[in-house]
């Protein structure tokens, strides 16, 4: 069943000032890891416009490291990260916005749903500062949009893998992020389940139009989901452009 576009329409009353800075993500960073036997350097310079950009590459290419640097979970050694005019990291004037103030949604590979909270409480977690009526409205809207209303009172260990993926996506999107980072969120799902979630994500993004970085090492996902592709290998971008051109 296709999801109505209006389900995903952003609520004007709850659009925050951070939402206004949604736009092109600009990343120019270097992050170095030194180990006794091996070292690795991520060296990325890219502009990511609104839409779904696939970060594609083999294991160890630096895909997750790139997302963690953008989210603020890792601190780059050099460079600058900005979303439109809002600088969230800059080494030289020493700007490093804290993770919880970046307004960046992140869906982890293992989803990281809070096991002691119900589905409803997981989704409300990121919008606790809103007044109760607005919070309830947003929660119910996103639950309906991702077809998980019936799971509201269940704990994450009481729902299926596909349902958990939907909850994780809904939890990140309900906060109206200005950028969304997805780290192989659908890797463990079967084809039909994956297609439905991808469809929901596409519709959501058509309404919100924020940059989405979607990490995968599946060629199929690159061709079916992405508007653009960044191909990474050994910490560097080796190709970028339309999926059909790059793959």
């Amino acid at each position, binding site marked *: 069943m296709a999801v109505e576009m209006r389900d995903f329409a952003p609520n004007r009353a709850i659009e925050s000032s951070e939402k206004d800075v949604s736009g092109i993500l600009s990343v120019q960073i270097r992050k170095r890891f030194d180990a006794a036997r091996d070292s690795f350097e991520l060296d990325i310079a890219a502009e990511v416009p609104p839409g779904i950009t696939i970060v594609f590459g083999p294991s160890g290419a630096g895909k997750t490291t790139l997302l963690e640097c953008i989210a603020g979970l890792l601190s780059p050694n050099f460079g600058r990260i900005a979303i439109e005019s809002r600088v969230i990291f800059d080494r030289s004037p020493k700007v490093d916005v804290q993770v919880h103030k970046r307004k960046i949604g*992140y869906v982890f590979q293992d989803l990281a*749903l809070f096991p002691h909270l119900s589905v409803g409480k997981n989704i409300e*977690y990121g919008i606790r500062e809103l007044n109760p009526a607005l919070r309830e409205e947003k929660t119910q809207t996103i639950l309906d949009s991702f077809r998980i209303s019936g799971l509201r009172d269940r704990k994450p*260990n009481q729902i299926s893998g596909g349902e958990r993926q939907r909850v994780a996506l809904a939890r990140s999107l309900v906060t109206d992020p200005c950028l969304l980072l997805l780290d192989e969120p659908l890797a463990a799902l079967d084809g039909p389940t994956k297609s439905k979630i991808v469809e929901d994500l596409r519709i959501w993004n058509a309404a919100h139009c924020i940059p989405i970085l979607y990490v995968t090492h599946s060629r199929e996902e690159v061709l079916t989901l992405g508007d653009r592709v960044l191909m990474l290998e050994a910490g560097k971008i080796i190709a970028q452009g339309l999926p059909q051109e790059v793959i």
Partner: protein
Amino acid sequence: MDWQSLLLTIRLSAIVAAILFLIALPVAYWITYSRWRWKFLAEAAVGLPIVLPPTVLGFYLLIALGARSPLGHFWQSITGHTLAFTFQGLVIGSIIYSLPFAVQPFAASFAAVDSRLIAASATLGASKLRTFREIILPLSTPGLVAGIALSFAHTMGEFGVVLMMGGNIPGVTRTVSIEVYDQVQALNYSGASITALILLGISFSLLSLVYALNRRVFAVWLWK
């Protein structure tokens, strides 16, 4: 059996466990998440009471809290008496003596919380304090219960520090373990046996109850 010393011991243990809960939370959090290079020195200092003979610890506490020390002098200027050989002094000594028995289970349970959950909380806009309150603390409940139980039980059974810091004043600093010692010294083995058995029974029952409860608490968030 001297019920006065038993009640005093339970009161001391309850107060120490309550205060330790408040002190050990931030200490354990710092030990778990701090990236300070010399953190191991602080960990060693917190763990010292585990390996140090209680009489040695008691001796240092007696000196540190005595009338000639700055702390003891300050206390005396406010209250008119020293901390040594008082119930308050006993509480302070017991807190230091039992500190690792609260801090270590707390720190172990904080460290066991999946770092991805903490990262997820931050990306959802939660501050470190809110993440601690709403994610780390609830998921650490078994470790918190164990830490409180251990510090309570450890305080109930302490002897050396009590003897050095508190002496043997009935109704003030005379705990059950001191009473057992007194009875043995007086060759009253039957009296010592009853008192020791009661202490053993209370400690075992308390620990059994807490660990049983602990399992159930764990099961609630895991399976409910």
